[in-house]
Structures are given as C-alpha cells and as structure tokens.
C-alpha cells in the first residue's frame, strides 16, 4: 500500500485528507509541522508528501528543502491557499513536484497523487 505523509498544522485538515486517502487505499502518516514532517519522512520514507506551507516551528518550504537534502527523489506536493503563489513558487524551486490549492477538491488530490505514484 503506498504511503502518504500529510503535513499540516491543522488537525482538522489532516483528518479530512487522511480519511479521503485511506478510503482510496493509501496508508497515511501525519505530521503537525514542518520539522515533524521532515522527521517522519526520514523515519518512514513515504511515497509522497502532501505539505502545507504556513506552519509553526518549520514552514513547508524549509521542510521541502530538508526533505530534498535527505532524499533528492522525494515527491512533495505543496498544499496552499490562494494568494500564496510566491511561496508555492519557492517551494517548487526548492524541489516540490506539484501543488494543490485549498480548499481541496477530493478528485484533484487523488489525480495528483496518481500521477506520481499510480
């Protein structure tokens, strides 16, 4: 079962996404901030990361850089709100593979994930 790491400081958002993903046959790992996300990545090596941008402790962009340092092949998809284009841009430059704009449309999340890990 493909493993997906959901990094978001809002437990509500994690719950929503985790539910969607488990229903569609993915194993879900969760992290509440960027640093936790990096640690989880190193420990569990998920197939894909859904990464929020605005988070305490460590933001999503820094987390992408850290993850990429550890694993250049990591697949990180940024989850952002409208109006964060610059930050998403920076994340992509830091190595993020794609982005999804909140509020999430379930199909969009699933499509995006399928494109990377089938």
């Amino acid at each position, binding site marked *: 079962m493909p493993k997906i790491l959901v990094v978001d*400081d*809002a*437990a*509500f*958002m994690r*719950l*929503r996404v985790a*539910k969607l993903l488990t229903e569609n046959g993915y194993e879900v790992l969760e992290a*509440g*901030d960027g*640093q*936790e996300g990096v*640690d989880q990545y190193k420990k569990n090596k998920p197939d894909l990361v859904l990464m*929020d941008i*605005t*988070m*305490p*402790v*460590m933001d999503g*962009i*820094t987390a992408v*850089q850290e993850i990429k340092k550890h694993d250049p092949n990591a697949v990180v998809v940024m989850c*952002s*709100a*409208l109006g964060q*284009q*610059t930050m*998403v*841009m*920076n994340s*992509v*430059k*830091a*190595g993020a*593979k*794609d*982005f999804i*704009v*909140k*509020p*999430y449309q379930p199909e969009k999340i699933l*499509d*995006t994930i399928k*494109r990377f890990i089938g």
Partner: protein
Amino acid sequence: MGLQFDASPDEIKLFLEEAEEHLQLLEEDLVRLEKEKDNQELLQAIFRAAHTLKGSSATLGHQRMAQLTHGMENILDKVRKGQLSITTPIMDVLLEGLDFLKVLKEEIETLEESDVDLEKILGSLSKAAAGGQTASSAAEGKLATIPEGSTAVTEVAAAVQAAEPAVPSMALDWDEKDHVTRGKKQGKMAYSILVNLAETSEMLSVRALLTLMALRENGEIVKSIPSSEEIEREEATSVLHVALISDRAKDQIVHVLKELPDVVRVEAAPLDITREEAGASAPDGVTVAKTTVAANEQANAPLPKDETPGNGNGSAKIKDTKIAKVSRTVRVDVELLDNLMNLVGELVIDRTRLAQLLGALESKYDSNDLVEDLNRTSVHIGRVTTLLQEEIMKARMLPVESLFNKFPRMMRDLSQQAGKDIEFIMEGQETELDRSIIEEIGDPLIHLLRNAVDHAIEPPEERVAKGKKPQGYVKLSARHEENHIIISVKEDGRGIDPDKIRASAVKKGIITEEVARRLNDQEAINLIFASGLSTAAKVSEVSGRGVGMDVVRNNLEKVNGSVEIVTELGKGTEFIIKLPLTLAIIRALMVSVDSRVYAIPLGSVLETIRLTDGQIKEINKREAIVVRGRVLPLLRVKELFNHQTRGVRESGKTFVVVVNLGGQQMGLVVDSLIGEQEVVIKTLGKFIGDVQGVAGATILGDGSVALIVDVPSLVKKVVKVG
C-alpha cells in the same frame, strides 16, 4: 435557518476545537500586537492563526467564515510585508472581525445560521487593507520596469492565438543556435513546442514553471518564452513557447505534456534553425543558454531563510526539543479525563478496602505464605494507584493562561469605554489549575476586573489631582502557594472606605446601626460580599449586569475557594482568591450522626467543640451556643437530613463542628468525630440530582457511602432564616 456542512460530527468537533484555539490566540495576541508593534514573531503567529482558520473553514464549507478570515489575513499580510502599520483603527477593525468570527464559530456549534451581516465588516476590512495599498502599489508600479522580452512574449502569444494550429518558429540567438547544433550532432532532435495552459488555472506562474520543469526532464531547454526567470517572477502567461532538444520522439513529449494538469493544448514541430535569422542578437560567447543555467542555479541555491546563522549545533538542539514537545502531545476530551479520574477514585476506594480485608485475613491466618504474598501485591497496587492518581490529576491541570487570554482584550475595551488610562498587567499565566476550577472562576474574575476598571481606578484628572500617576494599573496574577493556587486582582485605585460600606449597609437594611458600629474595618469591608450591597452610586454599562460581589464569593465557594480583601483608602485594593488544586479529592473531617458517616470539607472547618449539657440556648427561636462571647447559630445534622432516630443518644456526648464561610460562622451538631481523611468526591448521579445541603458522596474503605456536607448552602440557609 439550519446549516449543513460537508463533514462528520467528529470532524466538526475537531474543527471547533482548533478554531477555539486559534480564536483565543488571536484574542490575546492581537491586543499584545498593539503594544509590541515590531514583534515579527507575534505577527507571524497571528497571521498563521488567521490563515489556518481560513483554510479549514473553506474546507469545511463555511464560506462566510472563510471570507472573513481572508479579509483579516489580507490586512495581516500587508502588515507583515510592511505595507501597513498597526494603528488603532486597524486594530479596531481586526478585533471587530474577531468578534464576528466568534459568532460564526458558534453557528457551526449550533448549526443555526446567525443573522450577522458581514457586508459591513468585510467592507471595513478591505478598506483598512487598501489604506496601505494605494501608496505602495503606486510606488511598485513605477519601480517595476518592464522586463526585457516581455513585450515579445505578449506579441508571440497574440500571434499564436490568432493563427491557431501552426507552431510559430522561434528566434534564437547565436549561442542558442550553437546549442541546438551541438544537440543535433549528438543525434538529438530539436523541437519548437507550444503549450497552452488553462486560463483559469490557479497559480498560473507556478503551473508554467512546473511545465517547464517537466520539459527539462525530457530534454534540454534551449530557450523559453516567457523565460524561467520571468516565470519565477510570476510573470507567466497561459502560453508557453519552448525550444527543446531531446532524444525522445515528438509524440512522446507531447504525451508527457498532455498528462500535466492544466495543460489544455500542446503543439510541437521540429525546429529548423537554418530558417531562422541570426540577426536577433549579436554573438556573445559567454551567455550560453543563459535562461536554463540561471534557472538551474536558482533552483539549487538555498532559499533565504529567517533562521539566524550561528552555532549550528545549538539551533539544531533547540529544534529537536521543540519537535519532541509537539509530537508528544495528544488531544483528549475533558470527559475522558473526568471518567479516568472517577475510575481512579474507585481504585483508591478499593485500595482502602483491600487493606482492611488483608488486616482481617492476617489476624485469622497469621504468617501464612499466601497472605504474605497477597500483602506484598496489595502494597504494590496501593503504590501504583497513588501514582496513577497523581498523574491523572496532573493531566487535568491546565495553565490559567487559557482563561487569562481573553482578559487583555476585555480590559482594553473596558478602559476605552470608561475613558480611563489603565495598564493591565498579567503574571503567572503558566500556573496550572484543575480545569473544572478554571471553568468556574471565569465569571468572578471578569466581575472583579470590571469593578476595578469601572469603580476602583479614577479618571486621569482625578488621579492627577490626588497626586497619582494619570495611568492606573490593574494587575492579575496567579501563583502556587503550598496546596493552593492564589489568584490576585490588584489595582492602585480609590480603595474601599469601610465607613461608606457601613453607612450603605445600614441604609439598605442589611445590618442595624448597632451592628455596624461594632464591626471592625475588615468586617465592614467584607460586607461588600453581602447580597444587595453596592457602593457605586451609579451603575454603569460595564458593571451593571445585575451580578454583585455576593455572586463572586458564591462562585468561588462552589469550588472550595475563598476570597480576601486587602485595601487601603486612596491607595488601592487587592482581592486575593485562594483556590484548591483540584476538586476531585478533598480532605474532609469525618463525623458520625446516628452511626451514619458524613464528610465535612476541611477547608471550611474552623474548630470542633465538645458540648456539655445546657450549653445550647434558644435565641430568636433558634438553637445557638455562645463561644468566646459570640453567638453561634446551630444546625443539627440529624434534623437536616431527617434521620429516623433509632435510639435517643445520651446528652453530653455531642460535638459541634464550627464551620466558616466568608466570615459567617455556624455550628453543625454531630454525635462524634471520626477523624480527617482524604475523600474522593462523587456526584450523586442524575437520578438523585441536587440535594440541598449535600455536595456529593464518597465511598468509604468498608464500602459504605458517606455524604459530603455542602457547607456554603447550609450557612446560607441559616443566615437567611436568621
């Protein structure tokens, strides 16, 4: 009108919990921000809270909340970027927004749509946001020079859209042509590729960059219009024109591109450089494939971080501890904690019973190996139970911060309304208290703080006339003291005049003139807790809520707390509130009446007196005794709880437990004193409900039930009758 959300009850619950946290943070930090305008960290925290709320509420499907948070976030973002500065009008509109947010959050709780009209607040929010925008955007417009080549981009794009199917050729400079030629020598193909992105795609520039990156994975980009720098500057259009050399077939590349999100059309054609005119630019050997190299460099270069450079080890360590703290936290429902506490209570009771049973076994089969074994196990269980009890007590503790958080905002508003200049100071927010106690002390504290602003602190002119600083202070502090928590509300206002209280109490018929004269100053001041007494000549909007100081004391006593006043006329007043650490377990004096056991909370017991015959007198048709010259009204526990007396006890063996409640004293007549004990408070349960005079019950070591006497209600009963 009912509201419906696309979320399960659990999800909504989680959303609400988090929303509450964010709202509290906003409440506290916004007020702080007004004072600490340059605190970037604070600003970031506030922005994050608004931002997260926006995302979550949009996902939940509460559009109005998302709109409102978006408006607030907008302002905060501008403040963050230095385009707006924190002014009182900006703070006012943000705080107003926060008030609306609270209403909207309630909507989600009740699933009832409120009738708040967001038009106005949304208007003020965007107006406030525009306040800083006008100046800076004009400046930006002037500063932003038109990037090179961007006119070409639009021209190309326009041309493409006019002549649809054809792939336009691309003007390459000498270096670029050389790049293509080298590629072809290695047996690669050169393509001119035109990609149309959906006009509606979100974050078009990022999408364009990702598309460019996908192409890069399939070959070498010789040139792109717009260039990757332009795209990274967020100047992308929906048309991307790329010159690519690749060893893949055209169809393969087109297929890859078509799989990408937001790509609506892909056209590709072989690139023929011989057809191109080199006149576009002069040869310049240094700028080989300028765009791609630059893009790569930028992609690899570390992004600017707000981390301070310094001792790498040190900062890493700090981060480590931070994560450890975060990841070890778990959300637990309060109810679960209550249940756990209850279960531990049962264990505590069983532990006592086990010890008693063991005693019986040991005396029956002394020095039996099995009994010895059982004894050891029982001692161990006892120890573990005690530890478990302590740990769960700790889990129920919450920093008073959660309560204090809302006060700075309240004090700010109150001071403004009252036209007073007041500095509000908070100390010891980290002090921990049982969460059920925290719930109970909110109202009393609000009342005391309101009083301080409304009645105690003088208007600036009056203060100056008295030789005081024009700005007064109100200080709210919490601290740990032995087995209690002390919360103090202290101000440097008028102070309480005992003579005024005496006069007022007499006028309102609370006490007689005779009594008033006999009261010492402290006793007179304590009269402010008597119901019906208010010294304020005028009742303002602020304090006039029909809640008096008597309610303050009652609420505190409900959680076994007490309140004391220290005041100096003209200098100020301090209310000192003493609270127990927890409500679940108390120390009690165990007494018996007709061989039934009762527990009297030790906090309210003053002393015990052994009665002798004839000591009980009848005063005003009520039983009383005289202790050291004071009349002490009596209440017989036997009568209070309607015991069907089985046998008449001999007189001369009666005890009086003197209890005290905010200066009011009375005696409870009991048959005998058993001793002090720690008891676990249990509620009587829903079937029985509230019984007057009973605060709850506890289970004793032998399994029997003892009622816990509710001292405050008894004192009130006696005082009322008297």
